[in-house]
């Protein structure tokens, strides 16, 4: 593929890369950096993309591996958080304050539950529910059999439901 053709092939999937990076990375700046490095790596290794139809899974795989490699390479360190609390805060709510706060609370709980999952489960669930990857694409991303994808998604969902709806069993369909 030529430069322009390769760019056009990747463009539809850059939003997915950005969202995945935003979920994996610790900050917006780290996510932006991860995106840029992932795209640079994609250009460097474009010859490894055998099937253009698999571009999305290939790009997401590359992004995730970069992230995991960075985590492995990182040594424990303290992070200095720059900026004031005002800078770090969210934008003010707009519209109906009650609805806004309620929605924010729900999303915070969901985000916290997702972060509590093992990385493989969280990423698999994210890529399935948010990005709509098929089981086959997920198997490519994780380099595992489709059956593993299926069980990994189920474990992720069970853990999420238990975290979000404590006290309710997740095996409601398991009566014998």
């Amino acid at each position: 593929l030529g430069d322009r053709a390769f760019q056009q092939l990747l463009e539809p999937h850059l939003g997915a890369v950005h969202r995945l990076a935003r979920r994996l990375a610790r900050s917006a700046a780290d996510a932006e950096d991860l995106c840029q490095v992932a795209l640079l790596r994609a250009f460097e290794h474009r010859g490894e993309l055998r099937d253009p139809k698999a571009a999305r899974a290939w790009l997401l795989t590359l992004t995730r591996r970069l992230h995991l490699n960075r985590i492995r390479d990182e040594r424990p360190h303290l992070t200095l958080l720059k900026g004031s609390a005002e800078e770090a805060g969210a934008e003010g709510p707009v519209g109906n304050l009650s609805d806004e706060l309620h929605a924010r609370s729900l999303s915070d709980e969901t985000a916290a539950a997702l972060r509590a999952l093992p990385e493989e489960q969280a990423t698999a669930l994210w890529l399935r529910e948010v990005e709509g990857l098929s089981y086959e694409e997920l198997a490519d991303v994780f380099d595992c059999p489709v059956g593993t994808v299926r069980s990994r998604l189920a474990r992720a969902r069970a853990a999420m439901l238990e975290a979000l709806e404590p006290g309710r069993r997740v095996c409601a369909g398991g009566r014998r």
Partner: protein
Amino acid sequence: MTTCPDFEALSALHDGEAPVGVREHVARCAACRETCARLTRLGDSLRALPEAQVTAPPSARRTSRSRRVRWLAPPAFAAAAMLALWLGTERGIPPALANEAVSQHLRSFANGHACDIESSDAGELDRYLSERLGRPIRIPASLRGSLVGARRCSLFGEHAGAVVYRENGVVVTVFLPTPGSVAARKSAEHVGGCANARDGQTVCVLPGTDAPRLAVGELPAAELSLLVAEN
């Protein structure tokens, strides 16, 4: 299927990957339907997360007047940024200067915030940037395009002003480096020079009153260099 399937089968059904017989069972079983409904709600809440989780960078936040500029999709700009860096064919001005300008231009779109303040009122933007940068700023008058807004940004780690214009649907950023800054010093040696990248991004160093300016956009150099007035 007379007994209820396990949770993994219901999870697969939610994904449209159900084993044979599961769908028929769920149609008859209230408990399984309830589990499926919970899985649907979980999916909905996950899909609602991306917008809720994205945090705007501090420099992009402003109070009531702040609005996001969304005419250009961030992914396309991310790709353009990558290509500009990857393919970089700068000429006429130093690659480091061109890359920094292109990077800062595109970064705002990748973040979804091109402007801290949107206004076509030059006086209002003068006041905003002067307040944020701690020095009197007079933004360049637009000769060809329309004024969109402004933001505070950084070039080589030092504060600078950024004014956003639109010319025939193309968004252009004109950076106003702080006099004496690295960007200003590097630019001073190349006033009138332009750099082109293969994907169409162009950077031009324009003359300014107290320091040169850097214009960046997907316009031919001849058009970009005539976008704003010198004073």
